Each structure stands twice: as structure tokens, then as C-alpha cells.
């Protein structure tokens, strides 16, 4: 589900079915690496849209968390843990961070939730057809990560 009023109406009626939050983490910097930063943002945007389409009924796609690339890792960690607390209290059992920014890898083990790091692929020079193909190949590899997570959780509660 998306961050839209009409989807929230559906969510409110089907709360018990939606237990996974996807939060894209998108870095911002306006220096020499401006192109690669924008590319990361666009790529993660596409991936999270596609994941949302795949798992619409169980996943809520949040607006991206954007931060300056210079922001310290400790500060990011504190913020993400605040998100974690808030969303856990609101009924999300699974929280998934989606990013192309490799910095997050350094604090992955300190995060309370799943970090999906996907290196961004330059898509802008590809034909529409290959673009779609490349993206759906990426998605195909990410699908089991989610379904396995759900399955594991269900096995534990049973």
C-alpha cells in the first residue's frame, strides 16, 4: 500500500493483514557525486515501487527517509531506532530498510530491523525493455527474502 489517502482507507479496514513496512533510505548531497546520489535515489524509488506492487496487500510503503550524506552514522542509528519503536508499537512486525547507500552496511548489525542493501544499477542508458527486465530480475531475488521472513515468523508463532 502506498502513502495515499485512499490506500489508508483500505489499510484501516484490513489492518490485521498488513504487518510489513518498507522504508527507502535515500541520501542527499550536492557535491561532485551529485549524479551517483541522484541515481541511487531513483533506483531505490523504482525498486520500492515495484516491491509495493508485488506485495500490495501486506506491505506498506513509507515515504523515503532522506538525509544528508554527511550525517553521522550514530545519528542515523538513533533516528532509525525511533522509527523502529514507533512502527513496532503501531503493529508492524517487520520493518525493512531499502537503500543503495553502502554506509548503512557499517551499522547493519546495530539496526533492529532488516536492511536490504541493493547496489544501484545505471538504468538511464538502457532501452525500456531491458530496464524492465533488469529491474524485475532484481525484484525476483528480493521476493524470497520477504516471503521467507514471513514464513519463519509464522512457524514461530504456530
Amino acid at each position: 500500500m502506498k502513502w495515499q489517502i485512499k490506500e489508508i482507507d483500505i489499510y484501516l479496514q484490513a489492518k490485521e493483514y498488513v504487518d510489513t513496512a518498507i522504508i527507502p533510505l535515500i541520501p542527499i548531497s550536492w557535491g561532485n557525486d551529485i549524479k551517483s546520489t541522484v541515481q541511487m535515489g531513483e533506483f531505490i524509488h523504482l525498486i520500492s515501487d515495484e516491491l509495493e506492487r508485488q506485495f500490495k496487500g501486506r506491505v506498506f510503503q513509507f515515504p523515503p527517509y532522506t538525509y544528508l550524506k554527511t550525517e553521522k552514522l550514530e545519528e542515523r542509528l538513533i533516528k532509525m531506532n525511533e522509527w523502529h519503536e514507533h512502527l513496532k508499537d503501531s503493529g508492524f512486525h517487520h520493518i525493512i530498510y531499502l537503500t543503495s547507500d553502502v554506509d548503512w552496511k557499517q551499522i547493519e548489525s546495530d539496526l533492529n530491523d532488516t536492511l536490504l542493501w541493493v547496489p544501484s544499477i545505471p538504468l538511464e542508458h538502457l532501452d525500456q525493455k531491458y530496464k524492465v527486465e533488469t529491474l524485475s530480475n532484481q525484484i525476483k531475488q528480493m521476493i524470497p527474502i520477504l516471503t521467507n521472513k514471513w514464513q519463519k515468523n509464522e512457524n514461530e508463532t504456530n
Partner: protein
Amino acid sequence: MSEKDHKVSRRQFLNYSLTGVGGFMAAGITLPLVRFALDPALKVGEETEMVAVAQVNELTNEPKRFDFKVNQVDAWYESEVSRSAWVYEEDGKIVALSPVCTHLGCTVDWDASGDHPNRFFCPCHYGAFEKDGTNVDRTPPTQPLFLYDQEVRNGTLYLGRPRPQV
């Protein structure tokens, strides 16, 4: 003849003609603006056009997934939306099903679960559908998968919008 004999004085005549001309000019500028602003909203219920999705000779008895893009116009906002279809051919008839689970809208996969062989399966809440799209009892969905409007021209399959099977 003096000024007083005229029904319309020079001053009045100038006033009338200037207001008239000015009015026309103002209308000439504002009316198109109003029209442009309202236009997208006036075009209601525009049909999604048919999109080429697959070659008929690619189709088999086994459902195959095809991805395509459609242009969607939502009032002022025009966007390209990804759609997919599960397509197969049976007894010379082409069936194109929408992969959108009728429960909460996840994307279903064909033959993906050991518990439901040869069925469409939704990974979100384990909904299942038969090959023709009928929802399987005691799984969350309450209605069959939607069926696309379809058309075959020169060996190419075109799909339109998905509609509920009733």
C-alpha cells in the same frame, strides 16, 4: 446640427465601444485559460486503450507472465503504470488473467507453492486460485481473478482493462 441632437454623445459612444472591445479582448485571453484548466477534468471515463502484449504463437497451455505498460490519466496527472498478465491458450481460446489478488491486491504467481500445485498463489496471505481464476475455498480471496479485455490482430495479442469475472 449641434451636439445635443445626437441620441448618443461622442463621449458615450467612445465609452461603449471601448468597453465592448476591452471586454472581447479580456474574454479572448481568459476563456482559453479556463478551458485548459478544466479540460482534463471534463474528459471523464476515458477508455484505456488496448496495448500489444504478446505474440499468439508464444502462448502455451501453461500460464506465462507478460509485463507491459499502460498510460493512465487521472485528472491532471498522467502516468505510466506497470501491469502484468498471466496468459495461456486452452482449446484455441486465449485466457488473460490479471495477477492482482482479489483479496488485498498482491501479485499472484503460478504454481509457486507446494501446497497448491497448478494454481495461482498469493504469497502475502496464501490465497489460491484455480487455473481459470476461480478462488479456492478457505483461502482469503472472495472472488475470482479479473479477466482482461482482449483482442487478437495479425497474430498479436492486445489487452485492455481487467474486469471482474461474474
